């Protein structure tokens, strides 16, 4: 009896040790051939798109018999988890790639090489996708991701606040100077309403558009910093003027977020990317009070430039089912599914011409300005190692935002940081 107890105790101890180990082991890499019917995990970072994408995945499962499950990992954790997965060998099978990080993943042999399969495909029409976007996800002649979507930027304005101030709704023919005057009129002295809001980290969706519209640039023709260009500095000083006269205090914007301030009627206008539409549609206040207008022009250049970017669908090199992963990416990239993505209101499509469907996905807002913005677009600036200078750039801009430094000094500092980091890449 006693002996049995001892054996029991010993086996329990052993079991504890084994389970303790299994926890950190995880599933290792995959075998060469793979299982063509193995289920796929699909990782994305945008909650607003989960429902629509899962629907597209379900259609894929029906057609091929391969299950595909969409998981949302919030943007800040997404890259940490993906990198840990890439180092540890346990990644999602199919996932979004972003221009900030693409080169790092492509150059380190983490992603499944799609080149031959794309070339052999009978259903893909790769000539219908924008060149910049395709090139972004190619490295040394090989294709590692296919374009998922495209995004542009437009102004969101609060109709009720415009009515109260007696200002007609913008029709998209305005200039940035007129925009500023309107923002001033909308800003109330008691601080209950502000005309406009933007954080230093609203780069792609706010201040970079102003820089390019006013003839400046973030990266110049030589691929170095454009923050020493007088036009860039002038544009940033215009942004600075708005920060200090028509926006809430920087601390308020950082604590609460500009989209929340807009969604609570505290701010009358913001500029946001088309990827926010799915979320704004579900926000009762915004759906009732807001509408969309095209970004203002610059009086001197006459241009209204919107930045554009697009995500890519990539697969892990170590996936258990490389054939299925490719099939899913191909599925997402076909004209039909690009159109379905637009119709469901997930995002605008990367495929030429089908985004008209996206405009009609909701009757709550007029989304045409996002489509019109395609007339004059600049691709989101990037280098081999974008984040190395992107984060310090945003960090430096917090100083003029908080009034600790004037904008010209910040631009000079950013130029120095960027040129140093970009030189290190070579």
């Amino acid at each position, binding site marked *: 009896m006693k002996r049995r107890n001892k054996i029991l*105790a*010993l086996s329990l*101890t052993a079991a*504890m*040790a084994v389970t*303790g*180990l299994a926890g*950190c082991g995880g599933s290792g890499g995959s075998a060469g051939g793979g299982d063509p019917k193995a289920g796929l995990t699909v990782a994305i970072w945008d909650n607003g798109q989960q429902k629509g994408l899962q629907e597209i995945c379900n259609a894929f499962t029906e057609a091929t018999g391969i299950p595909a499950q969409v998981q949302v990992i919030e943007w800040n954790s997404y*890259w*940490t988890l993906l*990198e840990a997965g*890439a*180092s540890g060998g346990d990644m999602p099978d199919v996932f979004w790639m972003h221009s900030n990080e693409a080169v*790092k993943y492509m*150059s*380190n042999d*983490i992603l499944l090489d799609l080149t031959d399969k794309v070339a052999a495909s009978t259903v893909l029409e790769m000539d219908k996708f924008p060149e910049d976007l395709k090139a972004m996800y190619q490295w040394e002649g090989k294709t590692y991701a296919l374009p998922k979507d495209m995004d542009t930027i437009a102004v969101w304005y609060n109709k009720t606040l415009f009515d109260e101030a007696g200002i007609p709704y913008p029709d998209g023919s305005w200039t940035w100077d007129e925009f500023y005057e309107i923002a001033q009129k909308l800003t109330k002295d008691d601080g209950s309403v502000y005309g406009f809001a933007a*954080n*230093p*980290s609203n780069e792609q969706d706010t201040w970079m558009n102003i820089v390019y519209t006013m003839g400046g640039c973030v990266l110049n023709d030589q691929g170095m910093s454009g923050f020493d260009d007088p036009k860039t500095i002038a544009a940033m000083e215009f942004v600075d003027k708005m920060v200090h006269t028509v926006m*809430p205090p*920087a*601390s*308020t*914007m*950082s*604590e*609460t*977020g500009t989209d929340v*301030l807009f969604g*609570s009627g*505290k701010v009358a206008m913001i500029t946001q990317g088309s990827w926010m539409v799915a979320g704004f549609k579900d926000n009762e206040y915004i759906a009732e009070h807001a509408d969309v207008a095209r970004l203002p022009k610059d009086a001197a250049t006459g241009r209204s430039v919107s930045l554009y970017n697009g995500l890519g669908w990539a697969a892990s090199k170590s996936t258990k089912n490389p054939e299925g992963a490719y099939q899913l990416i191909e599925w997402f990239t076909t004209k039909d599914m690009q159109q379905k993505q637009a119709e469901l209101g997930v995002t605008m499509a990367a495929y030429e011409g089908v985004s008209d469907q996206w405009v009609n996905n909701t009757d709550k807002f007029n989304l045409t300005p996002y489509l019109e913005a395609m007339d004059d677009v600049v691709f989101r600036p990037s280098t081999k190692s974008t*984040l*190395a200078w992107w*984060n310090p750039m*945003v960090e430096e801009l*917090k100083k003029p*935002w*908080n009034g600790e430094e004037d904008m010209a000094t910040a631009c000079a500092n950013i130029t120095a940081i960027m040129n140093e980091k970009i030189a290190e890449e070579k």
Partner: protein
Amino acid sequence: MGTIKKGTTRERNEFVWGWAFIFPTMLGLIILNIIPIFQTIYQSFFKTGDFGKGNIFIGLDNYIKMFGDAEVWQSVINTFKYAIVEVPFSIAIALVLAVLLNRKMMGVSAYRTIFFLPMVAAPAAIAMVWRWLFNSEFGLLNHIFGTNINWISDPAIAVFAIAVIGIWSIIGYNMVLFLAGLQEIPRDYYEAASIDGATGINQFFNITVPLLSPTIFFVTITRVIGGLQVFDLIFMVMDKNNPALYKTQSIVYLFYQNSFVENNKGYGSTIVVLLIAIIMVITVFQMIAQKKWVYYN
């Protein structure tokens, strides 16, 4: 002869079983803690490549860079500010609560549960709730007090606001440890003291505190270490646009930023080695100082 042999078998048995029982913990500690410590120290001498490939040995360059990096020293100051507020308050409040709850009264287990509850909630959820309580625009705190204080975006006070969250979440845990310690103190001492005319406060300082000192010492050591490792609260509460971030980010936060966001694991490791060194020095001093004030029966 027989008895000696029996004794040694028993000793041997105890030896074997003792090790068998701590083996899983030892294994976990070695694999999850001790090996990574040495790997981290090793990594701090490298300029690390993407995904752990292509590391280049650079000797002490990371350390030289760190000693000249104002951001690192600011984070050390921030971390100390946090710990100096969090540790004493969380211990003092928990101690008082434990003494008050260590008697027969109505609903004592309900109170104990209530104070322990923050420990059960996920730190990320706690931080999200407090973030909105502190919000300067829509927050409950400013609303109730009719103030307009930027609790978490004013560089002068943000770190203390975060320490308040830390105190709130750890009180229950400290309290449970103190309650366990209080059970060990014999009732007789209090009875004798009452007969001699000692007041409750006298009893607290002359009986409870000295006899509870081993528990207080244990809690202090673990709380100082925990406080110096603060990360999740700052990570969840502070947005990257927050103007107070520079005066709030802790050593571990900076380690996370460098290692996982900017992908410079070598430098991140260097920062965390500095933290290990700081914690070791402080703990050694605490171990020496305990001889002056901790009474083991």
